[in-house]
C-alpha cells in the first residue's frame, strides 16, 4: 500500500489531499483526464467523466497512462471495475475518424468495422452519411460535419476530427507587448489551443481571457469573428484589442443591434445573431460575410441554442471558446465538447490567485431576520411571489447602508435582480443605477467614472454580470440574484477579482463579497446553493447575522 495523496472512490470521484507532499505532482498528473469538481480547503474532488476521458484522448493521453497514474498516486486499492471502465471508455474515442478524402471530400473512417456498422444503423445519424466507399469508409455530407459529431457523441462513439481547417482570409495581427507581457498561463492556454486546433480555454474571471483571445488571433493571422454576450462587452473587447494588438479601430467592426459593420475583425453579440424574424435568422449572413479564419466564443457556457446550430455548420473553421466555468445550468456540456471542441486549458482559480493574477476574496453572507409583519406577508404569498418578496425585503436596505458606510472610500458595487429594489436602493444611497434600460452611452460614462474613481458606488442590475471590466471594484454587495444560479455567482464574484494596483505599502487588495439574504425563506435556500459553489471553488465564506454587523442599527431599521 502506497501513501499517495489520491483516493479513488468507486463512484468515480477522486479525492486529492491538498496538504500531501505529492499533491502538486498528482494534480498535474490527473488534470488532463479528470474534471475538477470541488476545491475546498483540504480535499479537492475530481471526477472521471466520459467527456473528461475523451478530452484526455484528444490531447494524446492513453488509457494505460491514466490507469498507471491512478495506481501510482492512489493510497488505497483502486476498484478494478473502475479501471476496466476507464479503459473501455477511452477506447471508444478515436475508433471513428472524420478525414478528408482526396476525391470524395469529407469521410468517416473506422479502424473497427463493427463500430462503424453499429453507427451506420443508428437512427440518430441516418441521413448524415452518404455512400459507403469501402468497408471502413463512408462519405459524410459536408454540411453535416458538426451535426454528425454531435450525434456520434450522443450515441457514445465520439469521432476524432482530422479533417483540418480552412486557413481563412489572411490578416496580419500581432500582439503589441509594450509595457506588458503575456502571462505564462495565458501563453500556455493560447498555445495549447492552437496545437489542438479548436477547443475551450477555461480561466477564472479576471484572469485575462481577452488576452488569450488576442494571442490566439495573433497565431491565426486571419480574419476573426468574435461572439460576445452584450454590447458593453463588445466595446470592451474592441478597446482591449486596440490596446493589446497591432489592430487599429478601423480594422475592428461591431455588429450589434445599433451598428452593423463587417471588418477583418468583427465583434458580434449573441443577441443580434440569434434574433429571429418571421422564422428566419436575418443575421446569419454574418457567418458567410467573410472567409473567417477564427471564431472566438466569449463566455461559452452561456452559448444559446441557436448558436450551437449555427456552429454546427462552421466545423471547418478554428473555434476558440472562452469561459470561467464549463458548468452549464442546462447540462449541454456535451454540445460544447462536440461542436466547439474539447477543453484545451484549465487552471484552478486558487492557483492563479496564488500567483497574484487575481485578487483574493473574502465572502460573507449576511442573514437578515424578517420582522413579524413581513414574515406574515411572506407566509401567505403565492409560491411564485415568494422569492421576490424575500429578496426585496426592505430590511436589506439598512444592511446595505451599513456595509457601504463600513467600506466608505472603497469602490463598491451593489448588485441586484429586481429593478424596483435597485431604484429604491439607488435613491436611498444616492448612487447612480445601471440597468438594462440605461442607454449604452450612459452606461459607459458611468463605468468610466467608476473606473477612474469619480464614482465610488454603483447600483447595477444583471447587465453587469458579464464581461464588464471594473478592475477597481473592491466591494460587492449582492442583494438578490436569479434564483440559485451558480454561474451567476461566479460571474459576480469575478467582477471583484481583477487585481488592482498594489497599494503604497505593497499590500494587495482583498475583495469583499457580501450576499444579503432573508433568513428562513427561499432566498436563503437559493443562497445556499450558490454558496456551495463558492465553497467548492475554495472560497471560505462566513455567515453572520445582520445584528452582529458590528455597528448600531440605522434609524429606519425596524
Amino acid at each position, binding site marked *: 500500500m502506497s501513501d499517495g495523496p489520491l483516493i479513488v472512490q468507486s463512484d468515480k470521484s477522486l479525492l486529492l489531499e491538498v496538504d500531501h507532499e505529492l499533491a502538486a505532482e498528482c494534480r498535474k498528473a490527473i488534470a488532463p483526464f479528470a474534471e475538477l469538481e470541488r476545491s475546498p*480547503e483540504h480535499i479537492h474532488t475530481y471526477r472521471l467523466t466520459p467527456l473528461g476521458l475523451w478530452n484526455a484522448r484528444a490531447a494524446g493521453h492513453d488509457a494505460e497512462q491514466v490507469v498507471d497514474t491512478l495506481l501510482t498516486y492512489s*493510497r488505497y486499492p483502486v476498484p478494478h471495475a473502475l479501471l476496466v471502465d476507464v479503459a473501455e471508455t477511452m477506447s471508444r474515442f478515436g475508433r471513428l475518424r472524420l478525414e478528408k478524402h482526396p476525391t470524395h471530400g469529407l469521410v468517416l473512417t473506422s479502424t473497427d468495422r463493427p463500430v462503424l456498422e453499429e453507427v451506420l444503423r443508428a437512427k440518430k445519424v441516418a441521413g448524415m452519411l452518404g455512400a459507403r466507399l469501402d468497408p471502413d469508409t463512408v462519405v459524410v455530407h459536408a454540411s453535416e460535419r458538426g451535426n454528425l459529431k454531435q450525434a456520434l457523441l450522443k450515441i457514445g462513439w465520439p469521432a476524432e476530427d482530422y479533417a483540418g481547417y480552412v486557413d481563412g482570409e489572411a490578416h496580419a495581427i500581432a500582439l503589441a507587448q509594450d509595457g506588458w507581457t503575456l502571462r505564462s498561463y495565458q501563453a500556455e492556454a493560447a498555445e495549447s489551443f492552437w496545437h489542438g486546433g479548436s477547443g475551450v480555454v477555461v480561466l477564472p474571471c479576471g484572469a485575462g481571457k481577452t488576452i488569450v483571445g488576442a494571442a490566439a488571433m495573433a497565431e491565426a493571422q486571419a480574419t476573426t469573428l468574435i461572439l460576445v454576450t452584450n454590447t458593453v462587452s463588445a466595446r470592451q473587447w474592441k478597446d482591449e484589442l486596440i490596446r493589446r494588438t497591432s489592430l487599429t479601430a478601423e480594422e475592428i467592426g461591431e455588429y450589434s443591434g445599433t451598428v452593423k459593420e463587417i471588418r477583418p475583425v468583427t465583434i458580434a453579440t449573441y443577441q443580434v445573431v440569434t434574433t429571429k424574424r418571421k422564422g428566419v435568422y436575418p443575421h446569419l449572413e454574418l457567418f458567410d460575410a467573410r472567409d473567417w479564419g477564427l471564431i472566438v466564443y466569449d463566455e461559452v457556457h452561456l452559448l444559446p441554442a441557436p448558436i450551437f446550430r449555427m456552429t454546427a455548420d462552421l466545423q471547418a473553421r478554428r473555434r476558440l471558446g472562452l469561459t470561467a466555468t464549463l458548468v452549464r445550468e442546462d447540462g449541454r456540456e456535451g454540445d460544447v465538447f462536440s461542436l466547439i471542441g474539447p477543453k484545451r486549458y484549465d487552471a484552478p482559480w486558487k492557483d492563479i490567485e496564488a500567483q497574484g493574477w487575481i485578487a483574493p476574496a473574502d465572502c460573507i453572507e449576511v442573514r437578515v431576520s424578517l420582522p413579524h409583519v413581513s414574515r406574515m406577508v411572506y407566509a401567505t404569498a403565492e409560491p411564485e411571489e415568494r422569492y421576490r418578496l424575500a429578496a426585496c425585503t426592505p430590511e436589506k436596505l439598512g444592511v446595505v447602508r451599513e456595509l457601504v458606510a463600513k467600506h466608505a472610500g472603497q469602490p463598491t458595487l451593489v448588485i441586484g435582480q429586481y429593478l424596483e429594489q435597485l431604484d429604491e436602493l439607488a435613491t436611498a444611497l444616492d448612487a447612480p443605477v445601471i440597468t438594462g434600460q440605461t442607454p449604452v452611452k450612459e452606461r459607459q460614462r458611468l463605468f468610466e467614472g467608476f473606473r477612474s474613481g469619480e464614482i465610488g458606488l454603483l447600483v447595477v442590475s444583471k447587465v453587469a454580470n458579464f464581461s464588464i471590466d471594473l478592475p477597481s471594484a473592491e466591494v460587492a454587495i449582492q442583494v438578490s440574484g436569479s434564483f440559485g444560479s451558480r454561474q451567476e455567482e461566479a460571474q459576480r464574484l469575478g467582477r471583484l477579482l481583477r487585481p488592482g494596483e498594489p497599494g503604497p505599502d505593497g499590500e494587495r487588495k482583498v475583495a469583499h463579497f457580501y450576499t444579503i439574504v432573508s433568513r428562513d425563506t427561499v432566498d436563503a435556500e437559493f443562497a445556499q446553493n450558490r454558496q456551495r459553489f463558492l*465553497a467548492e471553488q475554495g472560497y471560505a465564506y*462566513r455567515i453572520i447575522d445582520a445584528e452582529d454587523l458590528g455597528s448600531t442599527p440605522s434609524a429606519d431599521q425596524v
Partner: protein
Amino acid sequence: MVHAPADHVVATLRRLLDLALAWESPEGLRPLSIVGDCLIGGVEAGVSGLRPRSPHPRPATELLAVIETLTPAARALLDHVIDGGGSAKSGSARVGLRVEDAETPAELLIAHRLLVPAGSLQPGLLVVPGEVGLALRSGRTTVHPVDEPPALATAPRPARLTSSASVGAATDVVRRTGLLLEWWGTRPASALRTTGLGVRELKATAAHLGISEQEAALVIEVASEAGLAATRADADGNPVWVPTDEFDRWRDRPVAEQWTVLARAWLASPRLPSLVGERGPDQKPWNVLTPELSASGMPEAKTMVLELLAGLPDGEGLAAGTGLPSLVARIAWERPRRPRTRPDLVAWAVAEAAVLGLVGADVLAPYARALVAGEDPTPVLAALLPPPVDHVLLQADLTAVAPGPLEPDLARRLEQVADVESHGAATVYRFTAGSVRRALDAGWTVAEIHAFVLAASRTPVPQPLTYLVEDVARSFGRLRVGAAAAFIRSDDEAALVGLLNHQRASTLGLQRIAPTVLISSVPIEVLLPRLREIGAAPVVEGPDGVVRVGAVDGLRARTPRTREAADAARAAARHAAHVTSAVRSVREGDEEARSRPASASAPGGGVLSALREAVERRGAVIIGFTDNQGVVAERTVRPLVVEGGQLLARDEDAADDDPDAERRYAVHRISRVVPVG
C-alpha cells in the same frame, strides 16, 4: 488401445479393481455391468465415437484404405460425425446403395459401411462402427492423451494490479452488504409469494448500491446465505426481507472478519445469482432469492475453480479470452461425468469470485488461498487492508471527508449527523439542514453535535457548519404536534383554569396547551355530557369553526331510496317474460315425455347400436350423458357419425341459435339413448 502410457493404464486398471468397479472374469477383465450403463456414450462421456463394433469388423488396414478413397467432403463429414459423438441422423440419405450410386457424401459413407444404421430401436439413426473410429485414431479410444490434464492458459499479471483489484473488491462487497442491510433495516424489501425478490426491488437495490443488477443479486444472495437477511412479516402481514439479528453482530466485527463470513457463505452456497434476469424454462425471468435458483454442482464448481487457481504459480492469472475455456476443459477432465451446465457454472464461479474479491484480475488473492486451504483468511486479509482512520477533514462546503475506512463506531455516529455522499475507500459526508435535524430527532443536543464534530475533525470546524447547526437547532421543534380527542376553547381564561382544577374533571384528561385552549383525551360524545354535569354550558364547534347551537339531533335513519315508476314497469315486464318462458319449458317437457317410448334406456352395449341406428335413419334421439363436470344432463341431438368412441351429433336444443351446432360426445359417457318421434 487407451491413449496413455502402458504403466498408467495398468495402474488405473488396478485402481478400478481395488474399487471393485471391474472384475476378473474368465474371459478377461470386465467392468461391472452397471458401470457400462453409467458410461453410455455421447459428447459428455469424453470418449467420442466409442461405439459398438459391427459384427464382422474389417481390419484397420482395410478400413484405412477405404477411407483413403473418400471424397474430401465425405471425409470431412466422417470426422465431423466422430467429433460429434459418432452418431448422426440419416435424414434424406438413402440406405442400402452401392458405392457407384451414392450421390451425397452421407450416402457415400453409408455405401462404404462407414456409417451403419443403429438398429431397429432407433430408426433413422446412423452410427460409426467402433472399429472405424479406432482406426481413424490409430487404434486409440481418444484423440488426446487421457493421462495428462489439459494445461491452463495463463498470463503473468503485475502484482500491484492484482492485489489492488482483489482487496478493493473485497472491501467493496463488505461495504455494500452493510449498506444493503442497513437500508433494508429502515426500508424492508417486500418479498414475492415465492419468497423471492421482485424485479423492481432488485432495480431499486442496484440503484441504491450503485452497482449493476447482476452484482446486486450476488450481494443479496450472499447476505441471505450468510444468514444476515431473512424474511418476516411486516405490519400488514406481508412478507418482507429484513436484516437478521446476526447482522448486528456481524456489523460490529472488523472488515476482514466480515469478509470471511461472506466468503465462506458464498463458497458453500449452491445458489445461482448469475441466472437472475435470464428467463427460466417457463419463459419467466428468474428472481433473486427464489428457492429454485440453485444447483447442487455449484459449490463443487467454486471449490474446483479456486483450487485450480491456487495451483498456479504466483503472479500468474488466467489468460484473457483463452483462460476460461482452458479452465472449463481442465475441470471437465477432472470430473468427466458432470452435466451439460458445467461451462456456465465455472464461468459464473469465476465472475462471482472476482466480485467477492477472492480473485483479482484473474489471480487468486493470498487470503483466498488460505480460505481454499481450509485456513482462516482473516489475518491475511487484515494485513492487506488499510488501517482504519479515526478522524475526518471538515471543509467549508459543509462536507466531511474520511480519508480512509472509518472506525465503525465513529462512522455510525457520523452517519446520524451527516449524509453520505460518496462511498469507496474513503467516505464523503455532507452536513445538511436535514441531516442535522435527524440528529436532533435522534436525541442529540446542540452541544453534543458541536463536541462530536470538534472531536472527530482534525481540521478546525468551519464557521458555516457551526452556523448551520445553530440555525437548525433554532427552528427545531418550533411546531409541536400531539394527539387529542377534543378541544375546549374559551376567551375566559379563568373559566378554563377553573375547569382544569375541577375535581370531577380529573377523568377527562384535560391539558392546557394555551391560555385559551384546553385539550381532552376523551371524545366529544363523552366530554359534552360530563361538562354539562359539572355545570358548564358548552356548545359544539363544527369542523368549519361554526357553532352548532340547539339540542343534539334525535336519532334518524336515512330514508331508503324509493324505486322509480319506470323501474317498476321494467320489473313487471321482466316478470311476465319469466312466466312465459317457464310455461314454454313445461309444455316442451310434457310433449317430449309423451313422445318418449316406455323402455327408457337402452341396456349396456345397446347405446352404441342405438346411436348407429339413429345415424342410419337420420333421426333425433335424446341422450343422457355425464359432462366434464360430472353433471348428468340430457340433450336432444341428431347423431351424424359414430367413430373412435366419439359421437358427432347436431345439437337440436341449440339449433334455434345455430343450425349447424355440431358437438362431440364421448360414447362411454352416454348412459342411455331414447329415440324421439
